[in-house]
Structures are given as structure tokens and as C-alpha cells.
């Protein structure tokens, strides 16, 4: 790219992997490409080469174990299992035997032979369709790199050369790379590769730094030292912001930080409007270690505990034992506050590749979430069993994702009852009255909310998917992404309808999508009568402040007025005007970028 082009500000959209906003100089993270040319050995060198190879294997094994131990501390046990598969790969018997054989017979150096073998494995795995195989291929690459570095005697301490705090921009970051980053110097992360469910995405969350992955070509767009802004909430990255924009972002961030610090003292206070309307303010989490942030920021519980990580980090079926351990961990950390555990919300192809699955043309409208769980009943039973075990003297609830019809709720309840009977027979204690709720994210569910409300114990409105399904927009599709509008009157009407149905059936209605944490939407949502807002932990203080500073009567008025408009833009502008007037000192528009 010609130097003149690099001066321009460029915006790109990727996958919002880890929340928060980071501003800073770019650090281009590159990995040395090791030249691995075949080296011919003399007869007398064969023996020592074999010794050298075995030693390198040992060193690599120790290295991976060290990384794993570090990961356990940083991310917890389950996520650290990402490295267990690395150890298995390293111990692959064929890798060992074939290399030994070829050293002896072909008299070639170990580094060349290892590279040859691993590259073949990598290519075969990458050639298979599916995220699962792609992830396994990346695992092979990570291990191969370590081993070859050790064979070449090059120390890879993963230090990356990062000297000052910066935003790391890379083509890809392997799990090993991420675990070994000096967190104090990492302001944020932006990568070309890495889908939403990749190990990269999961591990950047565990670092608690803003991260955006899947940007495709951000490494082409940056050059070292240039400033970059990454928004881990929206997935937007701004390369080389103009001086004006940069100043704006920095100011916003400064105010946000100062503001959040001032809000620390609100931690123990209830989320209540000035005229006494109580709203439960809880948080969304994806990994157990995020519970810390929830507690620090004064969350009143977890409104959405996503359980997919159990699958994604192991590429294997999560055992009941593991699930019990993880759910218990979260429930205990927050006790006696409630934890809402959502059953697996995965596309069939993520659950695992060894399942017979035709490539879906339209996965968004396909086999995922509750559909997979009900078809693979054992999956659901095991998850229910684990949740029930944990429910004994602990405050946990069950949430079903992507419900689109009443049948699904009925079937799930039936399975839940059967699992309860099973546990009764085994004389295992559990909470018989455990609440079973349903996510309202499919328009059909919102429209039959009255019927659903009769047969479940609470609702949780998933605005992200609700917007996509209602407006027929794929947020990840650059051609139509601008059509995604959470404040579209149609969406607001569905939310209202859902809340009213909940009211009539006397069940609580929560909202857990991104919108719940948007300060712009707070008064609107409270005014519509939502009982609970489940937000990203870092948004807890701001949302609490807004609610504590307002009157429910005003919030209701705001909600009413918002309904007078017929386009999303008009609604947004109205809310912006209103919020600016009512809350002049809040960085209200900060995260709307």
C-alpha cells in the first residue's frame, strides 16, 4: 500500500470478541518466519540428531505445560484445556516414529522433517469443512511452531518485543501467544483472523482487554506507531483516526474512566429510580472468571451465563462433572444472588464435527441452540442434570435459547421433569421449584408471548438476535449491516408486547442483549417496564447511575414518546436529545460508536 494511503482514517468491522474500548499506538505483532530447509546429515550425526529431537520434544512438552499452568491462573481450568489438546498433538506417536525413522533412513535434519509432517497434518485439517477442523489445524500449527523453534535452538519466549503499552495488531494470535502476553502492556487486540467462537476470541476475553477479531485485513491497513481505536463492544476498528477524531475518542475515554471511578461508591446501592421503581441490574458473562468483574462493578447477579465455552475450549462433549464444577463455581461466587444459566446456544457444526451434519445454507435459520439440544436429548439431559445438582441450596435458573414455539418449551419441561425423577431415584437433592425461562429472540416467540408466559417462569429478551430476525438483517454481512437498527419501531413494539404479556402472566421480564447495556436505551427500557437489565459488567456502573438518577414516571413518558416515531433514526435522535438533556455529565453516547 503506498505510503500516502496510510494517512487516511479507515474504519473496519470485525467480530466483537472482548468488550471495551482501547485507544493507543499500534504494535504490529509478527512472528518470525523460520526458514526450515532440509539439512543433510552425515552418518555420525544421525545419533546426535535423534537425541536432539527427543530433547526438543521434552522442552516443548515442558513449555506447553508451563503455558497451561499460566492459563489455569488466568482463565480457569476449563479454558486451559485448550492446551491439553496441544499436549496430545505433541505426543502423537506417528510424529515421533516417522521423524525418527526418516532421520535414520533419509539422514535429514529433524526440524525439516517435523515441519514437513506437521504441515501435512495442518493442510489436511484445514481442508476439511467446519470450524472444528480449522481450530484443530490451528492447534497443530501452534505446537509445530514451538517444536521447530526448540529444534532450531531459537528461544521463543513469546515476549513479542512489546516494550510500551500498545494495541496489538496481528494476523492471528495463537492461544500460546495470548497467554504469554504481558497484560500490563496490552491495551487491546485486533486480528485479521479468528471467528466469534475461536480460541483466540475466548482467550482475549480472559485477558479482559478490548479485542476485535476477524477483521480480515487490518494488518495491511496499519503501520507501526499509527494510532488505532478498537471498540470491542461493536467490533469497529478505526485505523489512523484523524487528530480531531482521536481527540474525541480520548476525551470520551477519559470521561468514561473518571465517571466509572466515581461510580464505584454506587456498588452496594440498589438499582432504584428516585420514585421507587426497582429494577434488577445483572450481568452477562461468558466465562467463569468474569464473575470477578460482576462483583467489582456491583452486579446484582448474572442474567445470562453463556455455557458454550465448555464445548469450544475442548472440542469435546462437556461432562456432567465438569459442568457441575463450573456452574457451582459461578453460583457460589455470586451467592445468594441469582445466576441464570443458558443451555447451549451453538450451531450444530460447533457442537462437534463428528455429528452428521449437512453443510447448512442458512445456519442462522438452521439447526442451532434449543433445536440441537432437543434433538440430541442426552445433551440436554446432562446439562439439566448438572444444573439441578447445583440448584440445591443455590440460586440458579435455567434459560432456553432460540425458542420459536410452545412445543419446545413443553418438550424441555418434560425432559426436565424426567431428569428430576432420575435424581429423586438416586436421592440427589435439588431445587424442585427451579425457574425455567425462555429467551425471546425470535419474532414468533415475541408474538405468542402470552401463550409462552403461561408455561415458563420468566422471559429474557435477546435483542441482538431479535433485531436480526425481525429486520431480516445479518449483522455480519457488510452489505446490509447498516440496516441493523435496535431502535427500529418494530423491535420496540415486540419488546413492549413481550413485557405486557409477562405482566399479564405475572412473570418477570428481563432484557439481555447489547441494547440492555446501552445508556441511550436505559430510560426507554425501564419505562417500558422491564424488570431486569442484564448487561456487560463494565456497563453496570453507568446504567445504575442513570436509573438511580431518574424518575420512573419520566422513563415511562420517554418510552411513550419514543413510540410516536416511525423510523429508527427518529427514535435514536429523540433518545439522544432526551438523554443529553437529562444527563449532561454522562458519556451517554460513548459506546454507540
Amino acid at each position, binding site marked *: 500500500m503506498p505510503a500516502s494511503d496510510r494517512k487516511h482514517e479507515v474504519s473496519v468491522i470485525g467480530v466483537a470478541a472482548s468488550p471495551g474500548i482501547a485507544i493507543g499506538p499500534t504494535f504490529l505483532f509478527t512472528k518470525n518466519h523460520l526458514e526450515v530447509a532440509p539439512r543433510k546429515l552425515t552418518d555420525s550425526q544421525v545419533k546426535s540428531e535423534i537425541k536432539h529431537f527427543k530433547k526438543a520434544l521434552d522442552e516443548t512438552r515442558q513449555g506447553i505445560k508451563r503455558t497451561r499452568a499460566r492459563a489455569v491462573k488466568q482463565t480457569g481450568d476449563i479454558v486451559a484445556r485448550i492446551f491439553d489438546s496441544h499436549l496430545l498433538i505433541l505426543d502423537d*506417536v*506417528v510424529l515421533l516414529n516417522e521423524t525418527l525413522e526418516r532421520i535414520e533412513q533419509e539422514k535429514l535434519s529433524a526440524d525439516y522433517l517435523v515441519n514437513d509432517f506437521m504441515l501435512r*497434518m495442518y493442510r489436511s*485439517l484445514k481442508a476439511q469443512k467446519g470450524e472444528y*477442523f480449522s481450530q484443530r489445524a490451528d492447534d497443530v500449527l501452534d505446537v509445530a511452531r514451538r517444536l521447530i523453534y526448540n529444534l532450531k535452538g531459537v528461544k521463543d519466549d513469546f515476549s513479542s518485543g512489546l516494550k510500551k503499552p500498545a494495541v496489538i495488531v496481528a494476523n492471528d494470535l495463537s492461544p500460546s501467544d495470548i497467554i504469554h502476553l504481558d497484560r500490563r502492556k496490552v491495551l487491546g487486540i485486533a486480528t485479521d483472523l479468528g471467528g466469534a467462537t475461536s480460541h483466540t476470541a475466548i482467550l482475549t476475553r480472559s485477558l479482559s482487554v478490548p479485542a476485535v477479531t476477524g477483521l480480515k485485513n487490518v494488518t495491511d491497513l496499519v503501520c507501526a506507531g499509527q494510532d488505532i481505536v478498537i471498540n470491542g463492544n461493536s467490533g469497529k476498528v478505526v485505523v489512523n483516526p484523524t487528530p480531531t477524531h482521536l481527540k474525541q475518542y480520548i476525551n470520551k475515554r477519559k470521561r468514561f474512566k473518571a465517571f466509572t471511578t466515581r461510580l464505584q461508591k454506587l456498588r452496594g446501592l440498589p438499582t432504584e429510580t428516585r420514585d421507587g421503581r426497582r429494577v434488577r441490574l445483572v450481568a452477562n458473562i461468558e466465562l467463569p472468571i468474569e464473575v470477578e468483574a460482576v462483583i467489582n462493578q456491583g452486579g446484582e447477579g448474572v442474567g445470562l451465563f453463556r455455557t458454550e465455552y465448555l464445548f469450544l475450549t475442548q472440542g469435546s462433549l462437556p461432562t456432567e462433572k465438569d459442568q457441575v464444577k463450573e456452574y457451582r463455581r459461578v453460583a457460589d461466587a455470586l451467592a445468594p444472588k441469582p445466576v441464570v444459566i443458558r443451555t447451549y446456544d451453538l450451531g450444530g457444526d460447533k457442537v*462437534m464435527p*463428528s455429528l452428521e451434519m449437512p453443510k447448512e445454507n442458512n445456519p442462522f435459520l438452521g439447526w442451532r441452540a434449543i433445536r440441537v439440544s432437543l434433538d*440430541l436429548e442426552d445433551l440436554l439431559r446432562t446439562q439439566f442434570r448438572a444444573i439441578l445438582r447445583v440448584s440445591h441450596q443455590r440460586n440458579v435458573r435455567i434459560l432456553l435459547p432460540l425458542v420459536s414455539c410452545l412445543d419446545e418449551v413443553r418438550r424441555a419441561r418434560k425432559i426436565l421433569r424426567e431428569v428430576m425423577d432420575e435424581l429423586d431415584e438416586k436421592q440427589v437433592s435439588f431445587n424442585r421449584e427451579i425457574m425455567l425461562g425462555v429467551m425471546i429472540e425470535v419474532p414468533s416467540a415475541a408474538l405468542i408471548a402470552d401463550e409462552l408466559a403461561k408455561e415458563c417462569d420468566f422471559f429474557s429478551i435477546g435483542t441482538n438476535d431479535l433485531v436480526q430476525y425481525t429486520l431480516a438483517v445479518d449483522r455480519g454481512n457488510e452489505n446490509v449491516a447498516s440496516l441493523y437498527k435496535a431502535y427500529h419501531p418494530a423491535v420496540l413494539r415486540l419488546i413492549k408486547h413481550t413485557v405486557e404479556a409477562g405482566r399479564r402472566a405475572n412473570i418477570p421480564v428481563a432484557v439481555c442483549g447489547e441494547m440492555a447495556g446501552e445508556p441511550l436505551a436505559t430510560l426507554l427500557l425501564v419505562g417500558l417496564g422491564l424488570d431486569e437489565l442484564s448487561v456487560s459488567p463494565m456497563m453496570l456502573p453507568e446504567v445504575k447511575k442513570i436509573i438511580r438518577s431518574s424518575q420512573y414516571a419520566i422513563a415511562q413518558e420517554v418510552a411513550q414518546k419514543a413510540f410516536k416515531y416511525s423510523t429508527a433514526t427518529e427514535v435514536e435522535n429523540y433518545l439522544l436529545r432526551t438523554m443529553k438533556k437529562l444527563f449532561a455529565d454522562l458519556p451517554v453516547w460513548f459506546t454507540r460508536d
Partner: protein
Amino acid sequence: MIKKEYKILNKFGLHARPASQLVKIASHYKAELWITKNGQRINGKSIMGVMMLAAEQGSTIILEVDGDGEAEMLQEIEELIHNKFGEE
């Protein structure tokens, strides 16, 4: 040399855990193990190879064992498959 066909019985097929169990058994024996599925033939002692197979429930795999302890190895693996890899 013994060659035998097996049907994968467990619901979630040969995902990472059962795959590693199978490879572990095979590693105890001198005999060679080759696994074929849909024409793809891989070395059954290689975890990377078995990962590539990802055999689903109901699929057929052909096991070829050859060498010292071939019968015993096949027997052990057969039991593992029959017991659905201890998953149900």
C-alpha cells in the same frame, strides 16, 4: 493381519475424547493400526489422524491391525466401541 468393520454406536461419535482413548489403547501395542472411513485411511495411532476422521454415530469404520498383539489390540478397541467409549 486382521481386518474388521465396526459401526460407531455412541451418539456423539468419535469426538476428541473417544479419539484419544482409542489412540491410547493402540499405543500400548506393537501392532500397526489403520482406520479407514469413507475411503480415507489414517494411522490409528496418530491423534491427528484420528481427529481428521471425526466419525459420526452410525458410520462405519474399517480397522486393520497387523503385528504383535494384533488380536488383543483389536479386542480392546472392540470393547471400547461396544461400550460406546464409556459415554452412555
